[in-house]
């Protein structure tokens, strides 16, 4: 407890000294100190309130080690990642081609846009009963829900990207006689690609949010299920919070992974501030 109180003072000390640090050290030191003091605040809060249910940071860490040792964590991580990757992959495989066609062909847009926009605002969570009805409890329902969660951002993002292609680029393509598949390959797809990648990022983020909720309600494995299970099996809130931490770290990992797509020369132009 004394340590925590001392830790709380760290940012103040840092504020005093931070001007003397080089810029790059500041970028690392400041966020680290803020994090440390937040953890200290958490620790003090639990100790002062006298709660026996809510875990301290140390208890959470012990819970995390226990999860690692039990081998259970890996199985649940794999279950969640499996559903997310398949659902996301299928959504991409259907959504990108569909978005390209609907965005490019005015008639396809007129016909399909209303139904896409009409289904889009329905939360994937609302589909859980139907997913279970169709696929039963298990991976099928999870993959289906992730498909729904990622399909709309990917399709709508791709559609918008194609419709945003600038008139000059369209005219350049026309002027140099590009048609059909060649027009698609050389202009439509590359012009839309930066925005498509952004929509993939959004979709993956949503998918990661939805899988936890879906597993809490309608599945018997995965990180969402682990949270529910830990609570039901004797209020193990240390395991609940530890799992939350794992979900957060994996979410950051997934985002970093998909951001690698933004680094190719062919799309970097789309992320430059103008």
């Amino acid at each position, binding site marked *: 407890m004394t340590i925590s109180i001392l830790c709380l003072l760290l940012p103040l000390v840092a504020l005093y000294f931070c001007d003397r640090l080089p810029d790059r050290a500041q970028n690392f030191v400041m966020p680290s100190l803020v994090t440390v003091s937040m953890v200290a605040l958490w620790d003090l809060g639990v100790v002062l309130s006298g709660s026996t249910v809510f875990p301290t940071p140390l208890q959470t860490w012990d819970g995390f080690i226990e999860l690692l040792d039990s081998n259970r964590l890996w199985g649940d991580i794999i279950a969640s990642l499996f559903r997310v990757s398949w659902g996301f992959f299928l959504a991409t495989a259907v959504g990108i081609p569909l978005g390209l066609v609907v965005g490019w062909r005015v008639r396809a847009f007129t016909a399909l846009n209303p139904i896409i926009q009409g289904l889009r605002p329905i939360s994937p969570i609302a589909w859980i009963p139907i997913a279970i009805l169709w696929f039963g409890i298990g991976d099928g329902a999870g993959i289906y829900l992730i498909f729904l969660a990622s399909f709309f951002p990917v399709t709508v993002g791709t559609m918008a990207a194609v419709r945003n292609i600038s008139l000059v680029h369209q*005219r350049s393509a026309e002027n*140099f006689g590009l048609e059909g598949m060649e027009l698609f390959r*050389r202009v439509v797809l*590359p012009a839309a690609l930066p925005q498509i990648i952004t929509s993939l990022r959004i979709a993956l983020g949503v998918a990661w949010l939805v899988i936890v909720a879906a597993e809490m309600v309608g599945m018997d494995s995965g990180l969402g299920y682990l949270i529910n299970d830990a609570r039901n099996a004797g209020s193990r809130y240390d395991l609940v919070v530890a799992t939350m931490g794992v979900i957060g770290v994996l979410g950051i990992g997934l985002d970093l992974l998909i951001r690698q797509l933004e680094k190719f020369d062919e799309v970097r*132009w789309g992320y430059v501030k103008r």
Partner: protein
Amino acid sequence: MSQSNPMQKPKVVFEGVSKRFQKGKESLHVLNDINLTVHDGEFVCLLGPSGCGKSTLLNIAGGFESPDSGRVMIDGEEVDGPNSRRVFVFQEYGIFPWASVWDNVALGLRDLDQAERSEVVQRTIDMVGLTGFEKSFPMELSGGMKQRVEVARALAVSPDVIYMDEPFGALDSLTRLTMRSEIIRIWEQEKKTILFVTHDVDESIQLADRVVVLSARPGEISEIVEVDMDHPRDLGSPEYGKIKNRLYQLLGVSHTI
């Protein structure tokens, strides 16, 4: 030899071109009865105030828009759509930011075989002074260099006519001067017919054989001014000043401030 010699072959002929735009309930009369003959190898500037329809006239000649009445003939054939024999150099950057300089310049050469294409692309890149930047992407280039890529892309297909819609408008004034002399150098070398839209009086006198002055909307040809000066032109000569005065007068502004 004057470029506007009537004995020369007509290249682009505007015959009574008129155009209206529907803007809500209002109908904008943009161009009214434009008659103009541009000769083979001639450099003609369309000069006029903003909104006078000079870009629209160029878009019609390029086949991107169609006139309400009248027509545009090129080599005796009516223009009915875009064609890579007549290439646009755009106002904003029309080159593809997702493709390298090399791939941009090669855009119109898809029908050539590999060896021939490489030869033409390299020669064109050298001509506009971008040697060494073949693999660069447009975002890595300055505004002037991007515009050179755009010019190279147009020249590579060796078109009959090049349309330029205020191509140097976004450049700083020094780069603009350099680009003008570059374009004249290339034009003298390649002898293409160039139709160049600008609202910059100096630009038109520096570049054109003839300056076509358009009136404010509805755009009509108010006068065609001949610039009978050899390149490189002396921007301080009395002749230059005389033409400049004349153009300002036609545009209805005084340049003595």
